[in-house]
């Protein structure tokens, strides 16, 4: 009962902040709502007993990435919208296209998840790890080792690329 | 795609680190200074004009109000200029005491500079230490003439007062204290890594460029130019004393700092010699009751704590006031180098450099 109340309250807040992110007139406010949104999601993770994920959510998203968003928003004057984006027809067409793609994606996931029998969770029971953090670590370095390493290589490439782009011509 | 605007910030005239009412308009790219425009004049009191309406003796008082950190040096420069114009002989005792006062004043001025300069770079304890020693000098001046800031300590032709009894012993005791305290300042700053990083290679100016742009005093000697008016064109009693002129090598903020610190020691050295050799005799020469220099003009410069303090005075020989009274303020001319020094440095260096050239707005604006 208590859990349900917590979940629905948080769900309402999360969605509410999500809506505010896209409706806020002021870009900085919008970014702030995004932070609030992330914090609510973090609390949802806590409710799911995934403390590690919750803390990482706060640390990486709220504390790291959005700060950089804020940087960009504060430094770059976003009040003047480029001419091309003012065309209403173009905007709605693009919006429809993205929304349709998203819809297809979500339904595909739902259909696929419905077909698969049983979640992957029981596999984790066999691990020697106790506790939340250890479990995440164990899974990352066993079952998901290749995706994990791929992701890290991708990040490395992105980082080097960013450094090259940012470097001024000597 | 992105619009990288330059940021224009206005530093001063109310700003904790501009040492008064200096205003610097900085054009920034991020935190890097592209261009600086120095705006002065907020403290302009028209002293040059005013002095053309005051008689020769009264002007001593007004000169106190220019570089109020080193009022006695201003007095000295003015009195010597008028004496030169009148070809007056100043008795040796007066010249010795003048030298002692001027050197005490140099120490007081450098104390204030050290304190504020260190404070600008964030070392706030040095500020209070330096002011503690400056306080002792103010006490000495109070003993001598009763005033602590604007002394009116000299007269054309000599001095108004002889030194009070036991004053020389107090000055000697002070010199001993100061020598010890200068080591303390050095301990806090000279080899401090952060201090080194903040001052070395900041605001580098070569000797030739420093001369061309008109720097004088410690700011010029920091660039390695051996020019000290006390040595080159001796005035007061400086010709009788032995002292070294410290020189920098790189012309950066750190060298200017080292030069001034060494000047503390040289100043106590001069004071000790002057006290040892203090001659007996009158303290004021044969000055006519009505001071009226013959028609003529002259330029005379002394080494004030900040640099070349020059007076250009024209007398028409008929009236009881100067016809033209001009001060060559060292702070004004040194400040001129600020835009050149700050270019390419960060905002934090701007305050370090303002401190490094040691300005007093009372003198810049007059």
């Amino acid at each position, binding site marked *: 009962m208590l859990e349900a109340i917590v979940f629905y309250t948080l769900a309402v807040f999360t969605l509410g902040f999500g809506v505010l992110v896209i409706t806020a007139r002021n870009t900085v406010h919008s970014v702030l709502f995004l932070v609030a949104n992330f914090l609510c999601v973090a609390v949802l993770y806590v409710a799911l007993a995934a403390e590690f994920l919750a803390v990482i959510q706060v640390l990486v998203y709220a504390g790291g990435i959005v700060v950089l968003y804020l940087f960009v928003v504060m430094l770059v004057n976003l009040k003047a919208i480029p001419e091309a984006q003012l065309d209403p027809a173009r905007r709605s067409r693009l919006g429809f296209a993205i929304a349709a793609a998203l819809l297809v994606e979500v339904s595909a996931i739902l259909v696929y998840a419905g077909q698969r029998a049983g979640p992957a969770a029981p596999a984790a029971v066999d691990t020697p790890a106790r506790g939340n953090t250890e479990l995440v670590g164990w899974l990352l370095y066993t079952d998901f080792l290749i995706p994990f390493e791929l992701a890290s290589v991708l990040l490395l490439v992105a980082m080097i690329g960013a450094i090259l782009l940012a470097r001024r011509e000597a | 795609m992105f619009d990288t605007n330059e940021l224009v910030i206005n530093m001063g005239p109310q700003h904790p680190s501009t040492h008064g009412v200096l205003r610097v308009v900085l054009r920034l790219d991020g935190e890097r200074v592209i261009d600086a425009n120095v705006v002065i004049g907020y403290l302009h009191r028209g002293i040059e*004009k005013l002095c053309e309406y005051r008689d020769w003796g009264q002007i001593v008082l007004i000169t106190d109000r220019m570089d109020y950190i080193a009022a006695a040096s201003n007095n000295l420069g003015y009195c010597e200029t008028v004496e*030169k114009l009148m070809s007056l002989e100043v008795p040796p005792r007066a010249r010795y005491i003048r030298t002692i006062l001027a050197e005490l004043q140099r120490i007081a001025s450098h104390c204030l500079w050290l304190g504020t300069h260190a404070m600008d770079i964030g070392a706030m304890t040095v500020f209070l230490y330096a002011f503690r020693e400056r306080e002792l000098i103010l006490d000495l001046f109070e003993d001598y003439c009763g005033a602590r800031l604007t002394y009116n300590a000299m007269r054309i032709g000599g001095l108004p007062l002889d030194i009070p009894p036991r004053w020389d012993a107090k000055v000697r005791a002070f010199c001993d204290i100061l020598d010890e305290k200068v080591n303390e300042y050095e301990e806090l700053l000279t080899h401090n890594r952060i201090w080194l990083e903040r001052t070395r290679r900041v605001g580098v100016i070569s000797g030739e460029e420093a*001369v061309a742009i*008109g720097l004088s005093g410690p700011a010029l000697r920091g660039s390695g130019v051996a020019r000290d008016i006390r040595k080159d064109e001796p005035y007061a009693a400086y010709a009788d004393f032995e002292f070294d002129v410290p020189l920098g090598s790189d012309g950066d903020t750190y060298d200017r700092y080292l030069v001034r610190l060494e000047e503390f020691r040289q100043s106590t050295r001069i004071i000790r010699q002057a006290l040892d050799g203090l001659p007996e005799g009158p303290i004021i020469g044969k000055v006519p009751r009505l001071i009226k220099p013959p028609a003529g003009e002259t330029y005379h410069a002394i080494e004030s704590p900040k640099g070349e303090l020059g007076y*250009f005075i024209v007398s*028409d020989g008929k009236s009881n006031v100067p016809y*033209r009274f*001009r001060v060559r303020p060292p702070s004004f001319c040194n400040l*001129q180098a600020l835009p050149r020094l700050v270019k390419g440095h960060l905002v934090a260096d701007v305050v370090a450099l303002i401190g490094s050239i040691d300005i007093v707005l009372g003198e810049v604006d007059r």
Partner: protein
Amino acid sequence: MAEPTRIAPPAGPPDPPPPADLPPPDFIRAIEDRFPGAVQKLSYWVGDWTIVLDAGRLVDVATYLRDAPGALFTFCSDVTASDWPPRPKRFDVVYSLYSIPLRHRVRLKVQAGDGDAVPTVTRVWPSANWLEREVFDLFGIVFAGHPDLRRILMPDDWQGHPQRKDYPLEGPGELLIEDPVEWLKLRQADIE
């Protein structure tokens, strides 16, 4: 206040000529040789040499004084002016020079009338920049070719030039108090 006991304003600086038995320094004679006619007058008083120059030759002579091995006046101590209203060329622009290697001084003087432009020496001595600005501000002497000739001590919209002898010590205050509208008109006119 000590009221000046001046009866008639002097018509110019005394500038006494050097005594006959005192030969001028070599660099002054060199100027006379190299730039014939440039030196209008030579003066010596309490140990200071003053050369009154023709304004048109100022920059040439200044450059020579800076670079010639016998002169080496690398340091421009001061640029200032004095005002002698009865004279047709009422201003004297005074340059105090100092040679750091040779430790000697000299003063250059150039006469200028109201509205006359004096050539700038900022290209010879960059330090003259602010000093010339100050002279412009306080005397109204224009320096031709100056890179940044603005007022420096007085406010940008100030009327008049305070160091001139005909400018009252009290400033323009009386007109302002008695007739602010007139005063404002005067200001506006000058800004335009």
